[in-house]
């Protein structure tokens, strides 16, 4: 009955044919077809793979079925599953699905089943706008927001009273301007531009404390609320630090290439201006060191654990929000520990030991020690679990990157400008 079958021979191409949104229980609670309807039975192949993978993260993102290809992403405990019939770059679809999830996040504050179900009409309208005949049409949040207004409590109250709607009354201009990411006629009484430079340290530190690999991933998030069409130029004290960068489409590549400045007309509101990478070729400062010993004894079926954390290269700043997460081996039943600072929890179902330390005091190093009780009769785990470290350092970009100045052209008012730096631990792992 579905006409797509008839067309199969001709490989009737559209990039994304259908979308199914599936929750963690395996219920399909939303479907959208951009062309003819494809039966949801196609998802059975996916459920099969999902079963096999055990972990939702291990479901292959691309699956082949007799007549279709399924490309899926896993976001916020939801699977976004798209049905493809013909050759298409898989990243194209994956990237688009993530953009869909991002848009939901942007609109509703989170991307979860309940939120999608509650706003199903807006979701549907969004999907309709984002994709035309399976090809992306409008994916810029600024453009979408002009066409379909995000819900907020006040408006939804007003809407129910007046029968108003969340569709824009005025016709959007965004698509029509040559700057697809910014609408015309923005007005603010307070003109301000804030930039958050966040750097994450990805590192693997081995047992002896040697850094196996370390790199810095940075991102500059912007919140720009400026009237009119401001043309901003941001320059850095030390742009040579940046090993690799990627930009929001608004940034002029050529200016960057020739002058190492970011020149752009910003989108209105929040956006990611650029992400950058400082590679392992440069030496990365590791803010903390970890002394640990975890051992399991054959006799008595118990283990010992002793972890101490101290500051290493903190550039004189305080390390905050320090947290250690350990995935214990299955055989560990319980943990009986004492923490000199902060609290620890051990979840024996997930085998997750979390030690929440808080601020790192260099005078009195936080320590966690005690015994682990093990399942009897089970051989000792061979591998010691690795420690995942979380931390935060305010007012510091660990790479040393600094924004030297921000200039605005094109408008006459004086904007308020601010830059904030934060360093965090990204995938920071200590092997034991």
């Amino acid at each position: 009955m579905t006409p797509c079958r008839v067309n199969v021979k001709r490989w009737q191409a559209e990039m994304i044919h259908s979308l199914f949104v599936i929750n963690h229980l395996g219920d399909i609670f939303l479907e959208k077809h951009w062309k003819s309807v494809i039966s949801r039975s196609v998802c059975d192949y996916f459920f099969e793979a999902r079963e096999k993978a055990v972990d939702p993260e291990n479901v292959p993102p691309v699956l082949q079925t007799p007549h279709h290809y399924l490309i899926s992403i896993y976001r916020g405990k939801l699977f976004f599953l798209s049905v493809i019939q013909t050759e298409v770059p898989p990243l194209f679809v994956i990237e688009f699905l993530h953009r869909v999830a991002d848009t939901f996040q942007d609109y509703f504050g989170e991307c979860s089943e309940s939120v999608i179900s509650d706003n199903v009409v807006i979701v549907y309208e969004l999907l309709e706008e984002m994709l035309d005949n399976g090809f992306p049409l409008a994916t810029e949040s600024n453009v979408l927001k002009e066409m379909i207004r995000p819900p907020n409590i006040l408006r939804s109250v007003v809407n129910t009273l007046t029968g108003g709607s969340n569709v824009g009354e005025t016709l959007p201009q965004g698509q029509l301007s040559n700057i697809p990411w910014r609408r015309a006629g923005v007005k603010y009484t307070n003109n301000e531009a804030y930039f958050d430079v966040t750097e994450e340290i990805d590192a693997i530190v081995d047992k002896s404390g040697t850094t196996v690999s370390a790199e810095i991933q940075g991102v500059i998030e912007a919140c720009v609320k400026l009237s009119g069409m401001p043309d901003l130029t941001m320059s850095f004290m030390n742009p040579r630090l940046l090993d690799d960068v990627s930009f929001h489409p608004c940034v002029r590549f050529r200016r960057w290439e020739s002058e190492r400045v970011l020149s752009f007309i910003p989108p209105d509101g929040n956006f990611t201006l650029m992400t950058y990478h400082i590679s392992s070729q440069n030496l990365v400062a590791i803010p903390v060191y970890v002394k640990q010993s975890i051992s399991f004894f054959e006799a008595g079926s118990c283990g010992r654990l002793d972890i101490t954390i101290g500051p290493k290269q903190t550039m004189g700043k305080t390390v905050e929000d320090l947290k250690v997460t350990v995935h214990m081996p299955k055989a560990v039943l319980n943990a009986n520990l004492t923490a000199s600072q902060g609290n620890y929890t051990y979840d024996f179902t997930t085998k997750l030991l979390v030690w929440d330390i808080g601020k790192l005091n260099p005078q009195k190093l936080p320590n966690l020690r005690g015994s682990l009780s093990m399942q009897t009769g089970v051989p000792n785990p061979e591998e010691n679990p690795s420690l995942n470290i979380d931390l935060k350092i305010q007012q510091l970009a660990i790479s040393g990157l600094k924004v030297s100045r921000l200039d605005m052209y094109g408008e006459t008012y004086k904007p308020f400008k601010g830059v904030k730096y934060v360093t965090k631990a990204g995938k920071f792992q200590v092997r034991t």
Partner: protein
Amino acid sequence: MTAMQKLLQLPVNAVNMVKTVQSQVQGQEEDKSPVLTPDSGQQAWYSALQPDELRHLRSGGTGGGGGGDQEERAPLEEGGGGGGGGFQTQPLRHDDLKEMLDSNKDSLKLEAMKRIVAMIARGKNASDLFPAVVKNVACKNIEVKKLVYVYLVRYAEEQQDLALLSISTFQRGLKDPNQLIRASALRVLSSIRVTIIVPIMMLAIKEAASDMSPYVRKTAAHAIPKLYSLDPEQKDQLIEVIEKLLADKTTLVAGSVVMAFEEVCPERIDLIHKNYRKLCNLLIDVEEWGQVVIINMLTRYARTQFLNPNINESLLEEGGSGDKTFYGSDEDEDEDEEEKEKKAEAAAMAKRKPYVMDPDHRLLLRNTKPLLQSRNAAVVMAVAQLYFHLAPKAEVGVIAKALVRLLRSHSEVQYVVLQNVATMSIKRRGMFEPYLKSFYIRSTDPTQIKVLKLEVLTNLANETNISTILREFQTYIKSMDKDFVAATIQAIGRCATNISEVRDTCLNGLVQLLSNRDELVVAESVVVIKKLLQMQPEKHSDIIKHMAKLTDNIQVPMARASILWLIGEYCEHVPKIAPDVLRKMAKSFTNEEDIVKLQIINLAAKLYLTNSKQTKLLTQYVLNLAKYDQNYDIRDRARFIRQLIVPTEKSGALSKYAKKLFLALKPAPVLESPFKDRDHFQLGSLSHLLNAKAGGYQELPDWPEAAPDPSVRNVEVPEWTKCSSREKRKEKKVEKPFYTDSEGESGPTESADSESDSASGSESSSGSEESGSGSESEESKEASESEEEEEEEEEEQKKKKKKDLKKPVQESESEQSSEEEERKHQRKSKPRKSESESESDEDEESESESSQSESEDSESEAEVKKKKKTAESKPPPKPLKKESKKEKKEMSLLDLDDFEPAPSPQVTPVNTFLSNSLVTDLEGLSLSDSVLSPATIAPSSALKSYELLHRITGEGLSVEYCFSRQPFSPDANMVAVQMQFTNSASSDTKNLHIEDVKLQSGMRVKEFPEIELLPAGETATAVMGIDFCDSTQAANFQLCTHTRKFFVSIQPPVGELMRPVFLTENEFKKEQGQLMGMNEITEKLTLDVKCRNEHAIVQRVTTAANLSRVPCGSDKECSPPVPPPDYPVHRFAGRTVTSGSLVLVTVATKEEGAAQLTVNCEKMVIGTMLVKDILQALTQ
């Protein structure tokens, strides 16, 4: 059909029409649903408030049976009435919704439509509401209309006749003055999959393709594939439309029309010719999704139109420019290209077949490169595959960095990228080698990512990095994730086969794994060891013995079978053990798995042939057991083998060859990557990922033997064809979207061409930079100094004696040199001193901090290097030593501890401090050690001072200024200018201050605080800061006193626009390597006779420019002495004050005063000017 068409084309008043239809429809409905009561208004409201599931007893049966799994829940809950799986027999109860749709209130309609859309979203059938919904298509309310459109698109196919009723509304919409309404009408019209309206759609598309609004044209492009799928007969007409739209010059349309092209007529490559250059140039401004499609299409196009750039691969490689593109920054690109083209030409001279890259080919490569910086992973991947398939080998390297960046993204993106990297890393291993560490595995990675990373690591392994990789593997072996461990063992096996140097190490490591507790690990190791042993069995009889012992313990059939096979195959090496193993196996034969049984028979046969004395009976016994086995394969095998090996009358000729049959030399297996040869699929494609051709996959054509005529791409408009003007256009293009009006209605005309970017500040400033460069020699007059100053000077001289003593050469020279020479010397040392002083301000601190960390970097870099060296220099572990060690260590799999690096400097905090202080020490050496407070600095004695205002023009007031080379504390980006005011008039001067500053854009001035009173005959000094924006533009301003105003200007020599930075020689070389090409200026010179010694050179250079000397000699022993030691190389480093761009100066001396001056600077203008200045300083 014709009747319907007529009806549709009539300019009917839609409302009337809909009304008549409405009555019709209602009539039908009433027949169907007897429940409908006219006065049920309130009731409808009530029921409308219930959850809508209650009203839809039937779930969406559209797709046919299979789908009913979980989602069926809701309908089933409310039970039996619905007649679950059966065909639709009962009318549905959507009466309340119909009621609402029929009402006059928009709010009710809206509510109803929202519920209907919610039903559709959940996959429930709402098709019976079609008549009620379709008449709302003309509704004035935009929101209702929109939702009706959603509904229509979904169900029009099923209810074609009714859907036709809506067509006229859309047709009117197509004529609407508002472009958005036109566009959305076309969108919906083309989405209604009803064959009957094909002609209408065709007409609408054609019209929209020449619409004024680019947005409507974009929609037209989107509609093309829709129509094509509906009716492929229309292809020819559609191609015409595509051709027309391809010629469109707006970025909005480009992506969509190429998408249409790809779907309708990808084979019509000829349509692209005329648009090729335009597409290349527009590319950067097209929206992300369009970029992907265009890049993929252009990849295919280029493969048909250009020649393989790697034809002369070998010759090009001799040029050895491979590394350069790796590290070279983007700016060198142009230069590189030229170079490469030159090289290619040179190569071509040597070879008969010359290869010169088509400029259009180059255009494509150049214009896609910046897109590697896109935030969209799909775009990055598209460019990466384009480079992989099209770029000269030496240039492909640039994509590695971007791909590695994507590894930080979502795990799905990682998965796809890693697959592609795995394929690329086989062909171009060198490309990813620098990023080896980015592929290290974390315990938190999902297994599928781990396995892919492992694949890449294995592909990247070579002689130099294998020790590092194996050490990593050693960690992985201990993982809790057993699938991953198995994959790691396989990977070790592959490394061992590929790299003979580590084969023994790997083998030993794997043998140790045989005592692992986990059976899977053991089994996997056995299988891999078996493969490895096949390569050189004679050496490893003890491993085979060891494995023979394992048969008692290992239960995994595959592993047992592998061991037995090994023993059988190499029974000659273990003549004593083999029969014993057979004996044991014979005992347990009946309990073994089938594959093990087969190998037991195999072993028996082999032993019988080599050692029949001992094993004859055993073999007989085994064969007898096998004869009665349940499995017919085993019975057959036994029979077959018996006939072969036991000579009887019947067996005849064949048994003579039994030995040859069984004990033939078997070729060692080749362990290959599963990604080998995957690159015949276009990278980044679905087909590549699945390693199977997906439907609609367009093969990547092979390069043509001879290039097709390139002139087909020429366009009549002359400026397109000219290369130079193309460059300019491109520049404009980039700026274009920012400065054009947001109203794109003027679209189809070439707005880009007419546009001139007057607003761009950068360009104007850079232009003036150049113009300003000529006029600086005027200022280089030395001013006379007052007596006071000289006194001070003397004092200082005393202080500095120490320093002078260190440089006796200079001292002796100063005898013959003039007084001025001496002064110069002091001048040189002075700025350095002054630098160390001002530690008060924050900026300075931060700077020194950064320099510290920098030098720290360099230090540990050196460490790393040393480590590497030791690692490299050490021979692979000796087997003897290993034997003894093995026993001790718990799990030292690969026995790599010889390679264990010495603890790196940052392991403990103590070391950090050490290195910090070391750096400060170093800095202390290069700077002067005496500390003076800023106030006591003599204003301009040691520094070259310039006249700002002459005594005569200033009516008694004279002003001199000099560049104090101190950091300007209020703003680190400013150059400090120290001014000395001398009032030689008879009256006091009051209120000295600055006014009316005229600056080039970007420049800033921080005025000095007003000098309230300057009594007659007195002098006063003040410091002001000027941000010159790294240009030698003059800062013009008025100097005001209480009575007069003087127009003055300060123009900096280029050497003052920088501040010194501390670099080590290694760092310097590294940085220099990144500033090649256009950023490097080299000049030959003959040194002035007076400045042929080290000191004089250093002095003159540092006088000419505010740079610091790079200490050399410390690492001379590390690097081979490239310049002969007699002719030293002097290096100086600095950063420009505003942008912080590095300025690197190298003076390489040669015999008889010949020298070569090299300046590397990102800012070419500064570089050129600096060369001029230093040249002057050194030659005079």
